[in-house]
């Protein structure tokens, strides 16, 4: 009922050639921080503290993270797909946000009220989280 890892890899590989990193802005939030008006996802636990800083922030819904790549600490594109790779989250968007297991806002989900964090989202046997979509309630 879900994309196989091989298929997911193909999707991710395709995404690598189609996704362009946004221009750096003064309000985005690498290095463990997350400023107001956004939801920040991190590839590592504890908001990437002591780890490679792969992160990305969101200001509106995204139904499929497979077509998004992580950003580096300097805002450059890592070319790594975000699908099933989120390990921690900070919600600073001003309303609740829901992380979904499957694309299209389906499957299991976790909702984070504004100003809430989770530094240790669930990980599976191979170390990847299962977040595939993000739903920001006020956008």
């Amino acid at each position, binding site marked *: *009922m879900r994309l196989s890892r091989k298929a997911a890899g193909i999707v991710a590989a395709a995404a690598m050639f189609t996704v362009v990193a946004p221009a750096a802005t003064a309000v985005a939030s690498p*290095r*463990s921080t997350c400023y*107001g008006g956004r939801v920040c996802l991190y590839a590592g636990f504890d908001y990437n503290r002591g780890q490679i800083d792969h992160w990305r922030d969101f200001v509106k819904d995204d139904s499929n993270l497979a077509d998004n790549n992580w950003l580096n600490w300097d805002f450059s594109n890592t070319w790594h797909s975000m699908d099933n790779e989120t390990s921690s989250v900070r919600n600073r968007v001003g309303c609740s946000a829901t992380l979904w297991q499957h694309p*299209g806002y*389906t499957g*299991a989900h976790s909702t984070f009220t504004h100003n809430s964090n989770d530094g240790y989202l669930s990980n599976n046997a191979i170390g990847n989280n299962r977040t595939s979509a993000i739903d920001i309630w006020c956008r």
Partner: protein
Amino acid sequence: MPLRNDGSAGFRAWPPETGRRGLLASTLLLVASAAACAADEPAPAAPDQDTSAMTQLVLPFDAYKTTPKQRAVLGNAHNHLVVQCMRERGSTVTPPAEDADAIAAVDPGNSRRYGVTDIEAAKQYGYHLARPPSPDTTGAWAAKLPKPVRHRLYGTAADRGCLDRATQALDKGARKADWPWLSLQDSLTLEQAAKDPTVKEAVRRWQSCMSQNGHSYPSPEAAIADSRWNLDEPEITEEEKQTATADTRCKWSSGLVLAWYGADAELQQDVIADNPGRFAALRANLKQRLKRASNLLAQHKSGEVG
């Protein structure tokens, strides 16, 4: 169940103690009966009144998750700790209050756990999320803060800000519990249930039903992932609405929702039975955090703390 005055957790009950389980079972069985009677034949679309079962997809793990009311209590206590922390550092901030009713109004619950299954929502919103807009409160308090204040609030790479400190303060003293493990089990039971033979059979009936309605998809996931719909944009085409409506009707008439929910619930019950210590810790952790949060809010109300 409301939060009690002593701050203890008003946990969701499962199985539902009001006989809803029986109602759910009978309703779902009615829905599935057409498909069960003619397993090899294309299932007709289900009548729309069957959507009443939607709100009753209560799962065993739900009894351990926070309710909207509990989330509001924890959120508001967190807000007070943030205000206190910022005041100690010379800044005044006014984070917006969390409202339990507002959270409950837009909380998706399990309505999209097995894909889109709400026929009425599908008619109106297609595969898009069916939720009223939530107020955007960011601009009201944090967006215009000067940079040094933002750093105190949000923290830096070197130092945790007041938002993190408030979270730590709220968690202090609470019994350790492995919430990430519960989230993982929550996604695993869903995936495992999808492999159940009864679910696979139901998917075949769903396929047949969809085909009869002029839609050729190998799976419900393929239907929602159709590139003709853009779920990131607000526009919803008539074609999307029609397809999603047929999809949801077929999900019920094929017995897919019943089969998937049944297998999912059984797996969750097994996980709970096999891990009593973990679940006791989850319940104790939430109870302690809620007690601390409720006490904090009560003190604030009586003017004992800022």
